């Protein structure tokens, strides 16, 4: 008996692609409403199919999915796409395992919410059909990414999500800022993907395969696969201890692959594109730059986790350090920003870094790799509440037509639904029980403390900052003082139902998601694990969060000069944080001053003047020579005859002397 009808997974991928083509090609001929509802219905169908698939995987108990204790990896289909040589083949397939099934829930859920929400948010925009087509393209690519059966399929869809992200960030293509943001996003991630690609090349050269099932798992009796440390060790030993620049090549491969993840997940120092990406429409930010695409890096590391575990954890340490630095950096910067979307963007960076750290500190011998589970749990809850926050921010922007929270304040009276849902989001991200963020973050902190006290303390500090800046944001928007709204055509008010319904839904999920028994569903090797709240970690972290919230309340609830005084007191630090520690300027310097002016221009000059000059030089010499010998053809008959006679004489002399 086939555990699942393969048509359903196929449809999950095929439907958004078809929708993309239909909307892309026929969209201009459709009305906005038709195109929008077509998109929503398409995504709704995908949602139902994905839920069905995920639930079948988790709860059907089919022996292809679980051997009674551990969850297994199951390949629904796997089609050859491009064969390099006998063994090395890129396939396009569909892999069901705990994390891909989880993503099959996350992506369509958020995507559907965004589709619905955009019906209201994007109403009347030019290029509405195009927008929906791109959303479908993105959903297709993202789904393809998470169900990848091999690392190259992942790379393929990895590129595709990058491209659709580019298209969506640059949706308002007539705005300079949007265009340059989209360009930046694409190029930065592309640079990261270069590392990913080289990593794949190294890995595949030594192991001779792209398939996850051959890298990390072993086949079981009924044709499914189970995570196997032996296989992973086989992959590791196929490198034969090769080293490069003093580091083992295996670590290099993993670090390079992780570099791709750093780009997509906006880890330092490749994070600069994400805040700018907020130039895209807000629902896009919610979908791509908060909930789904940016966690692809986390997903990638999780996917190759058994490999990361080998090699004395050096690659994992790298992940941890990068994640920890990024988390702290982004949290600090978020405290100073005034653009609400940017605050959310930095908060996203910080939260993703949380997940990275969780993966980095995970060890199979400590609570069955609890960090891994925590990371995935946080990925799930974060997707929900961050999408909620972004969509809420979208509703606010929709209402006051500004991203800047100096233009907001006191909105709780005008937009009650938005207010409540936003508050739920804030509480969730701050880690207040019983909201979902509390549970997942607590797991992460526990895992960090288990690994070492330093990482635990560091992450607790970041968690405190998180609570602080989120509530700073919340108070600045909904409390503080009320600016003069009479300049607008109408007072701000709650959005239409298509926009509030997703908010309410996501808020509800954020409230209850923490109670999902995640440890039974998603663990690194499929073995179930029961989560125990570690009160020694949970209670202090809740206290810290509450203190941070209290501080935020004290500073920002009512209009007062305190924040300005704090800003003045911290002086340069505040300015630096406000300017994101000048990372953009550094990049601008490197790209423009060094790469453009010191590499590209000299090369172009060299080409035009030296290489081309040499070629022209040959032509010039030839021309000069012909001008020099042109007088020989003077047209003077007597001269010709003289030459002729001289020649004949010469021949005569030669003949006379040498021949006779």
């Amino acid at each position, binding site marked *: 008996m086939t555990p699942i009808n393969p048509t359903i997974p196929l449809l999950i991928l095929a439907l958004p692609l078809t929708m993309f083509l239909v909307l892309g090609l026929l969209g201009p001929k459709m009305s906005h409403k038709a195109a929008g509802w077509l998109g929503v219905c398409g995504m709704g169908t995908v949602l139902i199919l994905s839920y069905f698939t995920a639930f079948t995987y988790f709860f059907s108990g089919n022996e292809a999915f679980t051997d009674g204790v551990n969850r297994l990896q199951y390949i629904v289909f796997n089609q050859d796409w491009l064969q390099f040589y006998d063994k090395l083949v890129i396939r396009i397939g569909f892999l069901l395992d705990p994390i891909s099934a989880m993503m099959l829930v996350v992506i369509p859920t958020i995507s559907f919410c965004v589709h619905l929400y955009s019906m209201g948010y994007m109403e009347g925009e030019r290029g509405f059909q195009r927008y929906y087509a791109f959303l479908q393209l993105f959903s297709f690519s993202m789904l393809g990414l998470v169900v990848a059966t091999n690392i190259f399929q992942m790379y393929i869809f990895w590129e595709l999500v990058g491209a659709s992200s580019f298209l969506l960030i640059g949706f308002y293509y007539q705005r300079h800022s949007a265009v340059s943001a989209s360009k930046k996003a694409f190029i930065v991630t592309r640079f990261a993907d270069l590392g990913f690609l080289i990593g794949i090349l190294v890995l595949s050269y030594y192991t001779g395969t792209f398939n996850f099932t051959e890298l990390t798992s072993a086949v079981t009796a009924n044709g499914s696969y189970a995570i196997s440390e032996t296989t992973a060790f086989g992959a590791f030993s196929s490198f034969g201890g090769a080293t490069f620049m003093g580091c083992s090549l295996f670590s290099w491969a993993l670090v390079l692959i992780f570099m791709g993840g750093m780009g997509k997940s906006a880890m330092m120092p490749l994070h600069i594109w994400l805040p700018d990406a907020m130039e895209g429409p807000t629902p896009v930010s919610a979908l791509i730059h908060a909930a789904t695409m940016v966690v692809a890096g986390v997903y990638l590391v999780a996917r190759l986790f058994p490999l990361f575990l080998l090699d004395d954890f050096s690659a994992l340490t790298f992940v941890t350090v990068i994640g920890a630095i990024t988390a702290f950096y982004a949290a600090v910067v978020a405290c100073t920003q005034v653009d609400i979307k940017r605050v959310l963007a930095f908060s996203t960076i910080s939260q993703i870094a949380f997940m990275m750290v969780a993966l980095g500190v995970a060890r199979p011998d400590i609570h069955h790799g609890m960090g891994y589970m925590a990371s995935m749990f946080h990925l799930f809850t974060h997707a929900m509440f961050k999408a909620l926050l972004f969509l809420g921010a979208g509703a606010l922007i929709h209402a006051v037509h500004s991203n800047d929270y100096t233009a907001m304040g006191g909105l709780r009276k005008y937009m009650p639904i938005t207010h409540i849902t936003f508050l739920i989001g804030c509480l969730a991200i701050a880690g207040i029980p019983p909201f979902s963020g509390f549970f997942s973050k607590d797991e992460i902190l526990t895992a960090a403390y288990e690994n070492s006290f330093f990482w635990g303390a560091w992450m607790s500090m970041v968690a405190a900052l998180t609570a602080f800046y989120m509530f700073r944001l919340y108070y600045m928007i909904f409390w503080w003082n009320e600016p003069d709204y009479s300049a607008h055509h109408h007072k701000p008010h709650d959005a239409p139902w298509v926009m509030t319904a997703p908010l309410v839904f996501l808020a509800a999920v954020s409230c209850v998601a923490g109670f999902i028994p995640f440890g039974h569903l998603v663990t690194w090797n499929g073995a179930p694990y029961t989560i125990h709240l570690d009160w020694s970690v949970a209670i202090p972290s809740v206290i810290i969060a509450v203190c941070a919230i209290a501080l935020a309340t004290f500073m920002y609830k009512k209009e007062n000069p305190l924040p300005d005084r704090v800003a003045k007191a911290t002086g340069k630090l505040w300015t630096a944080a406000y300017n994101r520690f000048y990372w953009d300027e550094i990049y601008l310097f490197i790209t423009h001053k060094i790469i453009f002016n010191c590499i590209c221009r000299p090369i172009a000059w060299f080409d035009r003047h030296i290489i081309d000059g040499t070629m022209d030089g040959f032509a010039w010499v030839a021309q000069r020579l012909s001008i020099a010998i042109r007088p020989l053809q003077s047209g003077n008959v007597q001269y010709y005859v*003289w030459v002729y*006679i*001289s020649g004949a*004489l010469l021949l*005569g002399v030669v003949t*006379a002397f040498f021949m*006779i």
Partner: protein
Amino acid sequence: MEILFVVVALAIIIFSVLTVTARRILRSATYLLFTLFATAIVYFMMDYEFLGAVQIAVYAGGIVVLFVFSILLTSRPGEAGERLESRRRGLGILTAVAVATVFGWVLVSRCSQLLVPQPETGLYTMQQLGADMLSTSRGGYMLPFEAVSVLLLACIIGGVVVARRR
């Protein structure tokens, strides 16, 4: 015979030199005429009477007259001849002397082969010549003869075309 040869040789040498050195072009033509006559005598001495006759008729009678006419047409009588630049003349003399030296040296170096007497031969009659001219067998000149006639025809037409007043 020897005396005749000396006279003819001297005439050829002197008139040749005069032809190219005469300042006035009409005189050049006249000296050319004398050279051609002397050449005709050489042909007679070789027993080629017909060739000598042709030389006189075509060259002396035809070409030189043509020259004279054209000279008269293109220059005013009594006009002082051209002056030669000394550089050009020097070059000419140098070349001519070089030619003379080289070929003279060749001749001298072949002295033994060239110092042969004139052999005695039978008479080459006009009938034989005419037959050879129109014969296609070995020693016959039918094809060149026809070619020359075509050439002359072309020349006549060409002359007419070129000289026609447009």
